[in-house]
């Protein structure tokens, strides 16, 4: 185990008075992948690295290495300091941040979960494969677990540490020409209901057999949590990132306080004690704030690092990515407020709608209204007269998310944790209109 305090002290001493930041990352993780009812890949990694950033009177440089012996660190510091010499001063470059009081976040570390052995993973997967073989279904997926830990310190006195364990179980099941999927990420293996994941994926696959064609066009949609989370993550990044806001490419630019989305939609970023918790500080060592992004459809705030905050004449919300970088700070621990419906009720109250389990290969087309495209995947169904009437071949959508989430008809009462750009806790949604631009062959 690396003694991070010692390494940081050594680095700061070598930097001889130049403002210096050290970011030490350690990850230890294992992933068992299965396909065609057998284990296909089985890997383990144990890796550490340190990034050292120097800031000196309007000049900056960074070196990253994964060797921690003194000569390697000396070489890296020397190289980083040397690089400072070749720059012109940037009057806008911020000095490193000083220390601030950090709030504690929810415990997201379980040693047992981080260290679950390969036999544990193989056993869980074996149970699924045995069940699938009995019904001529084929299982694919991953079961992974491990830990990541971060130490961020700087020569101005910032010292912050965070570690979290993770486990994620993802199952895709093929049943002849039908596909089903379910996935649960957690920080503790006790929170994974393996049976439920297996059951959902297998049932969906069976229900998806013999999918039918449907004419592309505008339909009401019922988005299961994973599908809704995929879309809302883009809305949050491209809408509520401080840099995009400042540049004017976000739909929120100049519109704070306006009701641009459905009154049924409320979104908060909360790394501290929300349902998608994480690191209580950002990559500048600043405390993560709870930021209410959308309150009943009204856009309330965007997230900032120190640089975008200075440009917007406000303060950092603690959302910096590793500095320096050219991307926007964005919400990483998003919680979408639950509603009062359920997927079953959404189906029951729909005359006609498309029910979507998961989306695939989503991508941004136009930033100003977050127009996106992507495909449906692993369980697309037509709902008619309050019931699922038939499985559908997958569809491509081309749709503005600002418009789509302006007309929310129902929100699920239960949220699920999803892994997208960061963590996002999201319920199901029913949207009034969603544009499918073409269909595929399966």
């Amino acid at each position, binding site marked *: 185990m690396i003694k991070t305090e010692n390494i940081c002290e050594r680095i700061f001493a070598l930097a001889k008075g130049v403002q210096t930041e050290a970011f030490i990352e350690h990850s230890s993780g294992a992933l068992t*992948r*299965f*396909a*065609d*009812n*057998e*284990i296909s*890949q*089985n*890997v*383990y*990694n*144990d*890796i550490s*690295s340190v990034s050292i950033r120097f800031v000196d009177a309007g000049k900056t*440089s*960074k*070196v*990253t*290495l*994964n*060797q921690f012996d003194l000569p390697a660190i000396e070489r890296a510091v020397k*190289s980083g300091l040397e*690089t400072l010499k*070749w720059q*012109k001063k940037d009057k*806008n470059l911020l000095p490193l941040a000083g220390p601030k009081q950090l709030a504690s976040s929810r415990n997201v570390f379980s040693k047992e979960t981080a260290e679950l052995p*390969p*036999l544990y993973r*193989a056993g869980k997967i*074996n149970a699924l*494969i045995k069940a699938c073989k009995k019904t001529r279904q084929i299982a*694919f*997926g991953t079961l*992974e677990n491990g830990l990541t830990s971060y130490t961020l310190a700087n020569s101005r006195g910032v010292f912050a540490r965070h570690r979290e364990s993770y486990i994620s179980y993802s199952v*895709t099941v*093929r049943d002849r020409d039908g596909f089903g999927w379910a996935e649960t990420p957690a920080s503790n293996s006790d929170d994974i209901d393996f049976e439920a994941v297996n059951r959902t994926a297998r049932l969906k696959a069976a229900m998806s057999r013999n999918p039918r064609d449907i004419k592309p066009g505008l339909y009401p949609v019922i988005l299961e949590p994973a599908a809704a989370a995929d879309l809302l993550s883009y809305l949050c990044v491209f809408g509520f990132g401080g840099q995009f806001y400042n*540049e004017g*490419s976000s739909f929120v630019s100049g519109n704070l306080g306006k009701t641009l989305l459905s009154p049924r939609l409320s979104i908060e970023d909360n790394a501290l004690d929300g349902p998608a918790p994480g690191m209580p500080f950002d990559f500048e060592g600043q405390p993560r704030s709870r930021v209410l992004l959308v309150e009943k459809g009204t856009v309330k705030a965007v997230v900032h690092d120190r640089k975008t905050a200075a440009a917007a004449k406000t303060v950092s919300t603690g959302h910096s990515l590793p500095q*320096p*970088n*050219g991307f926007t700070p964005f919400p990483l621990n998003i919680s979408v407020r639950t509603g009062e419906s359920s997927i079953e009720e959404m189906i029951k109250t729909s005359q006609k709608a498309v029910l979507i389990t998961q989306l*695939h*290969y989503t991508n*941004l*087309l136009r*930033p*100003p209204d977050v127009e996106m*495209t992507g*495909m449906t*995947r692993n369980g697309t169904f037509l709902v008619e007269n309050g019931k699922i009437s038939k499985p559908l071949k*997958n569809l*491509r959508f*081309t749709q503005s998310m600002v418009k789509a989430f302006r007309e929310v008809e129902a929100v699920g009462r239960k949220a699920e944790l999803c892994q997208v750009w960061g963590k996002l806790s999201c319920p199901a949604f029913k949207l009034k209109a969603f*544009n499918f*631009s*073409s*269909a*595929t*062959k399966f």
Partner: protein
Amino acid sequence: MFDLAKKAVEIANKRKAEFADIRIIEERRQSLSVKNGEIASLNDLVTLGFGVRVLYRGSWGFASSNLLNSRSIELCTLKAFEIALAGTIINGRPARMAPEPAWQDFWQTPFIKDPFAVSVEDKLALLFKTNAILRKNKKIKSAVCDLNLIREHQWHMTTDGSKIEQVLLSCGAGSSASAISEGEVQIRSYPSTHGGQTLSGGYELIETLDLAGNAERIREEALALLTAPQCPSGKKDLIIGGNQLALQIHESVGHATELDRVLGYEESFAGSSFATTEKLGKFRYGSPLVNLVADATLPGGLATAGYDDDAVKAQRWHIVKNGVLTGYMTNREFAHAIGARRSCGSCRADGFSNIPITRICNLSLMPGDIPYEELIASTKDGILMENNKSWSIDQKRLNFQFGCELGWLVKNGKKTTLVKNPTYQGITPEFWNSCDAISDENSWRLYGVANCGKGQPGQTAMMCHGNSPARFRKVKIGVKDN
């Protein structure tokens, strides 16, 4: 390094692994980026580590670490055995490796100018100069110039006798200008989108790009797009080349013919493929004009090396010949699934910490026989699209949609009106079968893809797709059918 590496091989042989290998990798990456006149990245990354792969009782295990010494290699090798053994509780088909001669060799990317010998001062000067030109208009809200240099030194040793040392070098650069006005956002990039153009070789590649010399043009094109008309929708003849055609090849042929995907081993994440093995040698993938060749020996190619990460010697082979599917990207594990006695050598890993997986090789569309000018001149009602902006394709690689930075309407053989936000959609074999003209070798160039993601845990790989502009008949432009 081979003295250290042999520890893993000795343990694997002693424990009677069917196959094992160790890859020790030292990597240096320098990334420089200037955004809006300020440094957005100036990072010099140096990493060292190893990964051990073991095939034991038909089951795979892999472990890696950045702690490089004999004890750490021993522990990782034993960990890989433990993982492989755990996998045997499931009665799957035992994995086996296609045979390959034992190679003992040294190979390195040819280059003229060592990119790490060029001063940071000179590199920053190029980026700042270009960036300043891009920003000479207040409507340009984001101007980004990037430079990325990578050297990977590998020592690869296998239980079947291969001992290969390789030094791979690649350089890339690019710039982009985003114009924003009244809710409209338009971007132009040079020479390609998504970080620019990357090829294998030395710093001489950067010097040929002339970033600064092209900055004024792309700035003005980004501004012109703000007020350009929306690209019309409907069926039109489509002319694409450059990095857009490269990405079309990448997404709809490259990934579709990775044999692990075809066999379902990527189903849970990236998906599978419509190009299933019973179609080999029979399926009409494209029109007879379409020849797509995979080539790990291609000069400048990002997937060009002496050997892949299965220790298979670099090869060149057809994926599509005269329009017919004739090959796949293979590794040693899956080659037997198509009756091949040897892998084509398309198995690579991202750094030391990832297991080698089947990857797209350099995959190029062979040139046709008409000059580019004639291709335009013979188009009555078409649209020419340049520089990819967005991409999406379904999980069997059939239904795709691409967006480009700009389009030009082509009327009666002439480029006429600049249009914004052009997109097109299609179904892979229908699209490639609609190809009725490919420009000749005079307009054939290599385009790098430096950020191809695949696998779980996620891995990034690089490859190139050579092409000359080609025409596709009656393609669905936009999202409406009118």
